[in-house]
């Protein structure tokens, strides 16, 4: 039978199942088929907090959401149009996210009374009318797959496992995806056992044909390719992009990359990624704790390496004292904080933006540190390079604030031309820079470059520049220990001036205000970029006028920031915290910025943001 084909501008699909059901892989595959097809995409996995919670339980549910469209996509989407639920737990855990009318594809084989009671379903939701608001497609995915694979020389377990490929085939048919990448992938993945490869391919095709033939689906959907700049694309997560950015910074600066780190969710994958790239001269040191991790990175920086440490909130707490030392030593250091929900252990796999003030002020004494934040998964690449550029140019520790949402989220990335990347020129000191009273040349480690106020970086092994540095206050210029009161005052202000001066060296804050006459500004930073962008778009489509500016540099602010925020009648600052950027903006510019805050461990829904913006416009 031929089916009706409906056009869609955008579709949001969530694959949900047990940790063992391979939903992440299914999502990844559908993503590359869709990328191949030419849609724009944004994806977000939702891992369970436990390693392997007992099968079939709510804590054990693993999900993957994908948003694709014929135009540029800014978020993984608010509410799924389609939910694939491999078991009752997956259905229950995700139901509240579904809008009325959404499609639900369920694997009926798993809806046994045992599984139902495991998650507290008194009655089978497929049989009572609790799902009446949705289009339910009840399909025995497991048994259909097993049946299709009868005769294959594989275990029953392996046959059952292939059910995710059946589901993928079905969805691929439903949205008319190109299947080559998946078939190629399966050949690669099961290269070692051709039988398994054949089986999974068969499962996939059976799923596709099932869609073709079954009554269960009367329509197919088509989502036209999106207009995207020409070039080579790949899908990339924030953590991978961040790791690549650090490697790129190392290549472009000629400084060997040294990572000192201690594993912590959601930052560990950066360590894992960098550990693979030894051929780039990358040294990864898994330290005994976070203090040793940042300490080793600082030691390597003293030796002339690009010293980096990666962590999340609890680790930043522990690194505070060493970061303060780096401020006093004025050595380059990049601290990557992949923010997660706090305080304390909080919700380790969930996202939050609540470490901004920690990055700004989390050290004793006056210890200013520049702060940079990426706005999207692929932007982690550029943000990492920028953090390294500032650190090495100004001889200062720099905070790079990503978060769990960016870290695990993915989007298509137009692979940049390497030669187009910023080049980072680091000149080590090689000569004495001062003359003793008797005219003899000597080296002053704290004699600053008048333009940047950066001090010379003389690495061990350089003859004639032997010097000692430390955390005790140093005499301006000579760097000798000094307890002189006014010298301390001078040095405190010099360190502050050096960081403030970076404002001269960063692009102005750009405002996106198509009509140019909006009187409400939405100011954001970090991972709220997507949701805010989608929200402003929605507001504008509804005829509203709103401007959007997004800060890459949180310290110092771009030079024009004050001028920008003062230009608008109202400034709305949405943050996944209790208003940390708002506090800085209000203090600095005395603008009555309005905070819109959500601390739920997940990105804002563009819908709720759009409403908030409308309210401010009306106000």
């Amino acid at each position: 039978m031929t089916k009706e084909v409906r056009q869609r501008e955008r579709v949001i699909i969530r694959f949900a199942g047990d940790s063992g059901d391979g939903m992440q892989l299914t999502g990844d595959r559908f993503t590359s088929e869709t990328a191949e097809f030419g849609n724009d995409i944004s994806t977000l996995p939702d891992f369970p907090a436990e390693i392997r919670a007992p099968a079939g339980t709510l804590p054990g549910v693993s999900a993957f959401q994908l948003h694709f469209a014929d135009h540029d996509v800014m978020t993984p989407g608010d509410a799924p149009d389609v939910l694939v639920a491999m078991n009752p737990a997956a259905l229950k855990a995700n139901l509240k996210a579904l809008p009325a009318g959404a499609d639900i594809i369920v694997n009926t084989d798993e809806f046994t009374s045992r599984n139902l009671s495991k998650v507290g379903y008194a009655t089978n939701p497929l049989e009572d009318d609790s799902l009446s608001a949705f289009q339910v497609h009840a399909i025995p995915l497991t048994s259909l797959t097993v049946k299709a694979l009868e005769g294959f020389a594989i275990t029953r377990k392996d046959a059952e496992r292939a059910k995710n490929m059946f589901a993928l085939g079905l969805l691929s048919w439903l949205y008319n995806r190109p299947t080559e990448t998946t078939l190629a992938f399966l050949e690669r993945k099961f290269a070692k056992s051709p039988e398994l490869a054949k089986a999974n391919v068969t499962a996939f095709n059976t799923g596709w044909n099932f869609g073709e033939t079954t009554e269960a689906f009367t329509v197919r959907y088509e989502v036209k390719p999106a207009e995207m700049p020409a070039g080579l694309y790949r899908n990339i997560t924030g953590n991978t992009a961040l790791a690549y950015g650090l490697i790129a910074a190392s290549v472009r600066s000629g400084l060997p990359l040294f990572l000192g780190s201690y594993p912590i969710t959601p930052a560990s994958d950066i360590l894992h990624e960098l550990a693979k790239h030894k051929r780039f001269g990358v040294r990864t040191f898994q330290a005994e704790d976070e203090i040793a991790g940042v300490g080793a990175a600082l030691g390597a920086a003293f030796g002339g390496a690009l010293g980096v440490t990666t962590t999340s909130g609890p680790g930043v707490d522990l690194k505070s004292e060493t970061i303060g030392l780096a401020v006093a030593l004025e050595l380059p250091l990049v601290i990557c904080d992949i923010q997660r929900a706090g305080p304390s252990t909080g919700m380790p796999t969930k996202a939050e933006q609540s470490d901004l003030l920690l990055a700004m002020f989390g050290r004793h004494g006056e210890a200013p540190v520049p702060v940079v934040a990426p706005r999207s998964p692929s932007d982690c690449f550029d943000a990492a390079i920028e953090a390294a550029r500032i650190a090495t140019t100004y001889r200062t520790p720099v905070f790079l604030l990503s978060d769990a949402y960016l870290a695990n989220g993915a989007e298509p990335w137009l692979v940049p031309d390497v030669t187009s990347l910023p080049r980072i020129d680091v000149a080590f000191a090689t000569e004495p820079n001062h003359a003793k009273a008797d005219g003899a040349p000597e080296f002053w480690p704290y004699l600053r470059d008048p333009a940047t106020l950066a001090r010379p970086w003389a690495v061990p092994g350089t003859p004639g520049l032997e010097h000692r540095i430390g955390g005790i206050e140093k005499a301006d210029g000579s760097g000798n220990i000094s307890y002189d009161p006014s010298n301390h005052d001078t040095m405190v202000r010099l360190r502050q001036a050096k960081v403030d001066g970076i404002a001269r060296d960063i692009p102005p804050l750009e405002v996106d205000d198509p009509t140019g006459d909006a009187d409400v500004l939405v100011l954001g930073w970090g991972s709220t970029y997507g949701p805010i962008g989608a929200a402003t778009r929605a507001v504008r489509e509804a005829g509203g006028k709103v401007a959007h500016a997004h800060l890459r540099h949180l310290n110092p602010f771009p030079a024009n920031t004050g001028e920008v925020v003062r230009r608008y009648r109202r400034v709305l600052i949405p943050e996944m915290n209790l208003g940390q950027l708002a506090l800085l903006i209000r203090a600095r510019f005395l603008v009555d910025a309005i905070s819109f805050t959500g601390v739920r461990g997940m990105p804002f829904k563009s819908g709720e943001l759009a409403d908030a913006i409308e309210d401010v416009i009306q106000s």
Partner: protein
Amino acid sequence: MTVPGQRTGLELVPTAAEKGTKKEFTSDQEVRWCPGCGDYAILAAIQSFLPELGVKRENIVCISGIGCAARFPYYLNTYGMHSIHGRAPAIATGLATSRPDLSVWVIGGDGDFMSIGGNHLIHALRRNVNLKLLLFNNRIYGLTKGQYSPTSEVGKITKSTPVGSVDTPFNPVSLALGAEATFVARTIDSDRKHLTSVLRAAADHRGAAFVEILQNCDIFNDGAFDVLKKPETRDSAVVRLEHGRPIRFGPPGADGGGQKGVRLTGHGGLEVVDVETVGEQSLLVHDETHDEPTLAFMLSRLGNVDDGVTPIGIFRSVTGPTYDDQVNAQLAAAEQAGPADLAALLASGDTWTIGS
């Protein structure tokens, strides 16, 4: 003990055209320790010993934490970092791992290394990073004006323990051996010759070399080691461990060697015996090269300053793979395997092209 064919501690450090002088290794900074502090003796010894190593001065780095001892780097005319309390071993690990061409010396007091920095110390030892870790053990917190430390004897009366401390101290040598250290030694601030010989062996050792230097704090713990220094007591208190020689100490006997000796007991311990009675042949012959640290550990329990008998010298010196060498070998291997192509890296994984 360096084994022929095995890399020595300084193997990858460029050698100097000619040996430097003590003066060249002395910085222009005014020394700020209390008059009479044991640190002066150690400084003098190291300033004259370092040039002997014959490596370029600019390739020597001294890293310390915080404390009186930790002021050390300021007084050496090499590269140096006076870091923060307890963290020097971690900082030095990063430097040594990324710069095999440097000779890295780490200095700290008993608070710096054994209290706040204890974890970094034992992990640096376990990893066998090519660092020379010198513990200046004065059994007190000097810089903060006299609180007890993790090496202070039980019952110590200090500002923070007005009726006496109650916790068992660490034996730094035992702790280091329990932490898989490959080179462990003990020496005394005032014994310039012994101090220098131990440091030379430490410098030769490839890997982490831990040296406990018993150091007198004139102001807050004066005389802590007098029993090892006073002519009337030192002979019967100091047990000098010398590789390959029977362990003897005490006032010289008929044969010129010490009257007392150390012997294995039948139940896994050591006993002090009278050499004339038992005969030298029955004494334990010191072997610092045992692969297992058991013998060294036994010797570390022979006694300490509190009960007089204190072994000094090299307890253990065995060669094993170092963390930094292996990390750099892995890098070299990877670089062998193929060129580092950034463009290829960025374009790795599933890609697709959007035509223009």
